[in-house]
């Protein structure tokens, strides 16, 4: 087939649950490609000599190669090809913002829609897992070195997988009772089924990675204690788990949640199955979600599945500035979420029992661009109005959790409290200690956290073999 013919094939849509049905369940929204759809979509790739997609991928997956294997029906081989550079393809195929990465620069995107790289990645990873084709690589004999990894999010999981394959002994310490970080407590089931994360964690365990849950480093043991108790290196991947609030009146009323709390109750603690599960959550009749990112979309789409009368996203800029993935905004709209754009809450109003009753908001207009290059929203005097609500979810971002930095004084921090590392190596200012993911970058993405993990694993390996810092 010549490139022209290939480009004539339309981008294959991914079958998904009907919006009317899915708003009342937590099952995954897209069903994924069938083998036929995947092979058809794979044909669209023109196998560029200079594949821009590879450069657009933060971990440089050999995209044309794996897509060619898909076109040939060699799905398991395709999955293994991806796994050479990406340990969590079933996760990334679902949650990566491909439209800003590989698919954005896909060569054919200049003329037609880009190749659906993410959907293909997801398909082959699912295929490999569902057909029991996941094999455990040979693990070299123990090097005699031990590494402690703090945090089991995508950064920590990546470091663990890479180092265990090099023959080091690896223990992950996780504060919560389940490993996975944001993948288990933040991103909802309908976007990333928890059984997929469990399968990935299980794979690491089978390779020999030890995982200690319920271990809050900084409290149970400090980084220094880990280093003096037999660990030769430490990786810190503790994420950005400190929710920001708006600091407006009424924010501590009953019914006002951080997105982290709301999502943790539902994803990690399964409050949507209360009282079968013991953790409750206020479902609300009218829900307001403040923010415009992925977390806000996840919170809103989660809230609507608890069957309230209305879910509204309140965002202070316009739709163009919303950092959430377009696909997710679209999914949210299909599910009936309403948007109050160019609007900002001023205060929350409660009843005499301290329960939330309304949010007083003000309309905004866009002024001059600010440091981020986005136009700064400015309040419009006299435009105050109230939205009735009994649940409000604040999703305006997270800061770095200070537990580790506070108990590890030698770590150099930015003024926001993020750990400073050397970008090439992931080294912190403390010998033997490396860091990556959201604790370094602030709220970022799964794939960048994994990229950091890969970088750190390589330099940890080098440090362990040469002893050079």
């Amino acid at each position, binding site marked *: 087939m010549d490139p022209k013919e290939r480009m004539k094939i339309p981008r294959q849509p991914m079958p998904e649950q009907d919006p009317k049905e899915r708003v009342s369940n937590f099952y995954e929204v897209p069903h994924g490609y069938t083998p036929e759809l995947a092979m058809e979509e794979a044909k669209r790739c023109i196998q560029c000599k200079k594949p821009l997609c590879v450069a657009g991928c933060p971990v440089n997956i050999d995209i044309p190669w794996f897509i060619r294997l898909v076109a040939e029906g060699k799905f398991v081989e395709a999955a293994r090809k991806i796994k050479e550079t990406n340990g969590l393809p079933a996760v990334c195929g679902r949650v990566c913002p491909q439209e800003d990465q590989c698919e954005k620069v896909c060569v054919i995107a200049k003329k037609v829609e880009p190749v659906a790289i993410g959907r293909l990645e997801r398909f082959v990873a699912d295929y490999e897992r569902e057909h029991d084709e996941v094999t455990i690589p040979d693990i070299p004999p123990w090097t005699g070195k031990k590494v402690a990894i703090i945090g089991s999010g995508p950064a920590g999981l990546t470091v663990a997988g890479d180092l265990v394959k090099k023959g080091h002994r690896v223990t992950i310490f996780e504060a919560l009772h389940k490993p996975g970080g944001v993948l288990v407590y933040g991103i909802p*089931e309908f976007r990333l089924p928890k059984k997929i994360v469990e399968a990935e964690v299980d794979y690491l365990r089978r390779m020999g990675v030890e995982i200690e849950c319920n271990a809050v480093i900084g409290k149970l043991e400090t980084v220094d204690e880990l280093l003096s108790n037999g660990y030769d290196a430490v990786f810190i991947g503790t994420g950005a788990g400190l929710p920001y609030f708006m600091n407006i009146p009424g924010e501590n009323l009953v019914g006002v949640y951080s997105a982290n709390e709301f999502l943790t109750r539902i994803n990690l603690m399964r409050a949507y*199955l209360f*009282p*079968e599960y013991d953790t409750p959550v206020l479902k609300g009749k009218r829900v307001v979600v403040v923010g415009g990112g992925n977390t806000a979309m996840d919170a809103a789409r989660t809230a609507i599945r608890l069957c309230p009368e209305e879910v509204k996203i309140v965002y202070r800029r316009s739709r163009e500035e919303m950092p959430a993935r377009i696909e997710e905004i679209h999914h949210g709209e299909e599910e009936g979420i309403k948007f109050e754009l160019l609007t900002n809450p001023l205060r929350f109003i409660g009843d005499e029992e301290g329960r939330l009753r309304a949010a007083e908001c003000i309309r905004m207009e866009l002024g001059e661009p600010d440091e981020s290059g986005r136009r700064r929203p400015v309040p419009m005097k006299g435009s105050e109005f109230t939205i009735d609500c009994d649940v409000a979810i604040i999703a305006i971002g997270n800061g770095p959790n200070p537990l580790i930095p506070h108990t590890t004084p030698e770590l150099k921090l930015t003024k926001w409290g993020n750990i400073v590392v050397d970008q090439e190596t992931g080294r912190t200012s403390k010998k033997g200690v490396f860091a990556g993911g959201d604790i370094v970058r602030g709220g970022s993405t799964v794939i960048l956290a994994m990229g950091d993990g890969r970088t750190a694993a390589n330099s940890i390996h080098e440090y362990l073999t040469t002893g050079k810092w």
Partner: protein
Amino acid sequence: MFEIVEKRELAHRVCLFRIRAPLIARKRRAGQFIILRINEHGERIPLTIADSDSEEGTITIIVQEVGKTTSVLCSLKAGDRLLDVVGPLGKPTHIENYGTAVCVGGGIGCAVTYPIAKALKETGTHVISIMGARTKNLLILEEEMRSVSDELFIATDDGSYGHHGFVTAVLEELIGEGRKIDVVIAVGPVPMMKAVSSVTRTNGIYTMASLNPIMVDGTGMCGACRVTVDGQTKFVCVDGPEFDAHQVDFDELIRRNRTYLKEERIAMEELTYHEGPRCYEKKGV
């Protein structure tokens, strides 16, 4: 899994557990707490570490049956295991020789004042303890408190034991006698802490309260535990659990602790009547 090595009933619906958790036992200091989850369907609840034995590798917790989780917990026996125990969480109490300290414990709050009084006693602080309970058979840890206190007062609401009345009356009496008090530590039901705080505020005595909000993770990640202290929002699980009582917005804490009253009732009904699943929407997986 965390094994229960001993269980004892201290009072009506109040149980003491010793749990095997060697790492926590080694690290914990007075004032810190754990979060536990009994089983896969369980919720995460915070409980103060009342005592520990680092040689034996155990921690002691004291639980009052107030809702579903605590009722299920109190139905467990020695040899049973808890799925998750995480800690030690929160900041330890700042312990120094304060001169004279008054430790006020209301009800189950004595489980918190006990380790603090013990640690204070070790510094040479003159420890005056005031223990309160609704009625005599709800009083816990009297012997233990006596062993770490220089003076001990007991107050029961119904007068069945000790002073007839509230702990605040005893405290006011001490203050009225002109006793020099350098610090007061108040732990118990929020209304009690609020009352103690207002007594000491008028008398200008520095007072610490150990707060007990609703929690989820206990690591500062969710903000469920937030309280207002001196006009600022604080996360009790990492910034506390102890705060300057005169700065705490106790009314807000009382309201926030009532967030799930309705849900708690539903959970209890489910537990008591075993009617099987009800028609609350159950969706998805």
